[in-house]
Every structure is written in structure tokens, then in C-alpha cells.
């Protein structure tokens, strides 16, 4: 499979300070990759390099010709004060196709409504974005990403702050988009337990360390213990993998 994104010996950072170095990996067409790590580990830095909004300090990031991102930002990144309907927001995904200084036409509106139907909220097209629940807002932002007909869907912390039901529904929707539509997906998250049961590959970022591989390869006690630096258990329950930090043994008091 051809690579949509290729990192070759990439160093990333801000100013003169390198945060991550020696990054070499591909995101092939058809991939379903989870970029996972705790807050502040460098996920957003890698994401920005992928999207092309951060230039590498060293090495090269190559994007396939004609690559088009469908970007779903963190929900709190957009401003819900704006009096916009769900359809208005979805239409933004067509803005660059519409062209500078032009307005979206009937066909763009048709596509926006189709994208909303695709993510299951066609009936909310005329509602104010600010009136939607967290899960509905996320679906609206996914619809905006899809309406631009991307070949790489990028989601930044799509389940952040959501309850269990909404989290399951959104992750299920993303997997459906990958399986049903063959869309290449990159999902950025701090929640390893959530992501690991949906994606096919995981890129783990921890304190300057980076490891990428199939889920089976990454989700082992040995790999995760080495990456996190603490003993980690990987259990399986009803086909789902769960990562647990091993409980530290109780200290033995010796008062004798």
C-alpha cells in the first residue's frame, strides 16, 4: 500500500528545543492508526507535523500528492458563541473547494446534508451548533471533515470529556467509516484503553520515546512496561484488551 504520510529521521520541537527526534514511520493508505500518549508527551506536535502546520527541525515529512485531510479538532477548540447552525459548520469543510471569495452553492449544501446523514444526524442540520450534546457536536465536526472528501481522516481527542455511551458511539462510528468506506484514519488520544480496541495500529508517545506497530505488537506487557517505566498488566475481557498498572506491593513494616 502506498504511504500517505512518511516521516524520515524527523526531529520536532519549538524554537531551538527538540521534543521528539529520530521519528521514522509511514501512514499507509487504508491504515487505522491510533496516536496515543499522555497529555504533554508530544502527540499534538506529531499531529501538527503530519498536518503540515509545524515544520520539522530535521528530517523530512513527505505527504502523498493530492493528499487531503479531513480534520476533526478537539471539541473545545471551536467557539460555540458563534450563531451557526450545524449545516453552516459542516459547509466549512467545502470552503476551500468553493474557492476564494465565492459562496457555497446548492451542490455544496446537498453534500453537507449527505455528510450529516452519513454520521446519523441529518435531522439536526438546522439546529444551532451550541445546542447540541457533546456526542452530537463531535458527529457534526466529523461530518464537516467528511464533506471535503478527504483521503485521511484525522481526529484529535474525539472522545475527550464524553460519557461511556457517547465514547462508544463515536469510536464505533469512526471504525465504521474506516471499515465501510475504506477511509484511512488517524486518531489522536490520551486514552490507550479506549483506542486500543478500535484501531489496527498504535503509535505510542511517552516522554520523548516513540514506538509504532500493530496493536498486538504494542499491547504487550513487555512493550508497555518498558515504555511507561512501570510494571503493566494487559488483560483481556470479552475480546477487549485492558491495560492496568500493576499495583505496587504493600510496604512491610518491621517494627521489631
Amino acid at each position, binding site marked *: 500500500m502506498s504511504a500517505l504520510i512518511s516521516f524520515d529521521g524527523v526531529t520536532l520541537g519549538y524554537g531551538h528545543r527538540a521534543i521528539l527526534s529520530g521519528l521514522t514511520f509511514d501512514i499507509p493508505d487504508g491504515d487505522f492508526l491510533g496516536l496515543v500518549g499522555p497529555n504533554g508527551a508530544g502527540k499534538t506536535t506529531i499531529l501538527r507535523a503530519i498536518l*503540515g*502546520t509545524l515544520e520539522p527541525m530535521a528530517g523530512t515529512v513527505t505527504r502523498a500528492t493530492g493528499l487531503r*485531510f479531513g480534520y476533526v*479538532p478537539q471539541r473545545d477548540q471551536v467557539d460555540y*458563541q458563534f*450563531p*451557526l447552525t450545524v449545516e453552516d459548520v459542516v459547509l*466549512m469543510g467545502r*470552503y*476551500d473547494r468553493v474557492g476564494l471569495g465565492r459562496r457555497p452553492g446548492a451542490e455544496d449544501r446537498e453534500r453537507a446534508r449527505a455528510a450529516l446523514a452519513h454520521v446519523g444526524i441529518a435531522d439536526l442540520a438546522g439546529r444551532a451548533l451550541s445546542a447540541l450534546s457533546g456526542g452530537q457536536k463531535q458527529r457534526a465536526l466529523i461530518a464537516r471533515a467528511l464533506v471535503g472528501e478527504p483521503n485521511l481522516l484525522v481526529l484529535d481527542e474525539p472522545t475527550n470529556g464524553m460519557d461511556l455511551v457517547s465514547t462508544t458511539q463515536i469510536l464505533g462510528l469512526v471504525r465504521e467509516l474506516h471499515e465501510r468506506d475504506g477511509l484511512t484514519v488517524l486518531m489522536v488520544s490520551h486514552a490507550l484503553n479506549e483506542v486500543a480496541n478500535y484501531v489496527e495500529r498504535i503509535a505510542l508517545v511517552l516522554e520523548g520515546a516513540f514506538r509504532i506497530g500493530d496493536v498486538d505488537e504494542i499491547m504487550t506487557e513487555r512493550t508497555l512496561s518498558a515504555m511507561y517505566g512501570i510494571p503493566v498488566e494487559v488483560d483481556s475481557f470479552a475480546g477487549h484488551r485492558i491495560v492496568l498498572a500493576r499495583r505496587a506491593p504493600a510496604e512491610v513494616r518491621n517494627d521489631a
Partner: protein
Amino acid sequence: MLDAVLLFRDALYGALVIALACSALGVWVVLRRIVFVGAALAELSSAGIALALWLAGIGIAPSVTSHPVAVSLLVTLAGALFFGLSGARSRVPADANIGVVYAVAAALGILLIAKARSGEAHDIFLQGNILGITRGDTLVLLAVTVPVLLVHLAFYKEFLFVSFDRETARTLGYRVTRWNLALYFTLGLVIASAMQFAGVMLVFNFLVLPAVTGLLLSRSMGGMFAWAIASGLAAAVMGFSLSVPFDLPSGPAIIAVSGAFVLLAWAWRARGR
């Protein structure tokens, strides 16, 4: 009352042009939460006038400083450039930058005007004198504001996208910094041209209050623009019409009407809940 208003009709036309341009751009000012950028640019514009008067008084570069409006425009646009380029990664928070510019510009305006030797009525120049707007002034205002409004009409969706969600706009190839600069630049143009006639307080009013009325009354961007412009124009007409026969200062009268519109809009919104 009508006769008195008609006597100052040129001034009213000028006030309407200022109300139209500031109310329209004020929608971005309010939605982007940069209301104090408007205030700081207005103070900079005022400080620019004071700087020109002071320099002219001590005989420095008379060919430039004899045109206080031009100096004011340059100073305001420099401020617009500064705010447009102030990145999110700056060590100093954005609102603190605005506060520094606001305080320094306001103080400099007062200090420079205190030392200016020019015999003009400085206070009126700095505070604005809306009744003094002539037909020629209105034409100058139109020459600045009409192109600005046309640019905003043509590139509405671009300004909307970079204001609403700059990261996503960036991933779709939008040069967000350039669009932000364009927005601040046009804002600076309108503020600098309006300041000399309307003064800091009235310009700030037109940038904020009509847009707040629009936000309270509307659930769409088009509606917000329409209500903001309509309430800005109505406040200008009503405030002006009340101030002339009752011998009230026009600027504060217009602001009082704008404030009443905000209260009415707020009450209407609260009733609907």
C-alpha cells in the same frame, strides 16, 4: 426638532457611515472576543493625533505632522499589525498585550496633547466632535469604509472560518495569519478614520454594543450582522435626534440609546427562555 436635526444633517450622515462600518466589523470584534483590541486601537489612533500635534508644535517633520489623521492612521495600522501578529505562543498573554497598549496609548495621548503647542481645540479633536462632521468629511469616511465593507462582504466566509476554527482552516490551506492581519488592518482603517470625528468612547460603543444586540437577537450570522447594523444605525439616528434639540452631547446620547437597545435585546432573549 426636525429643523434642528436637518441643520446638522451632514453630521448625521457622517455618524451613520461610522455606525454602519463599526457595527459590521464589530460582529467579528465581539465573536472573536477582542473587544479591547477595538479600545486599544482607538486609543492608539487618538495617541497618533496627539503625537502629530506635538511634533508639529516643536517643528519636527511638518510635511508629515501637519496631517494628524495620516499620522494617526499609521500609528493605528502599526498597532493592528502588532495585534494581528501576536501569536498564541507568546510568553505574554494576548489580553495583557492589549492592556499594555491600551494604557500606554491612553497616557501618551494625554501627555503629548498637554505639551502640544498647536492652538486647536485638542480635547474636541481627541474626544471627537460628531456635530462638526462636514459633507467633505463624510465623503472621506465613505472612501475608507466602503472598500473595507466590500472586502468583508467578498471574503465573509474566509473571515468566518479563520475566526471560528483557525486550526481546521489551517489544515485546509488557509493562511490564517494573513487573514487575521487583513481583519485587523481593515479594523484599524475604520477605527482611525472614525476616531477623529467620533472619539474613543463612541467608536468603542459602535464596535461593541450593536454587535452584542445582534448576538442577543439572532441565531444566525446573517441575522447578527443585520441586527448589529440596524441597531447601530438606529442608535445613531435616535441619539443624534435627541441630542440636538435637548442640547445634549451627541456621542453619549448615541451610546445611551445603544445601551438601551442592548437591555431590550437582553430582556427579549431572557423572556424567550
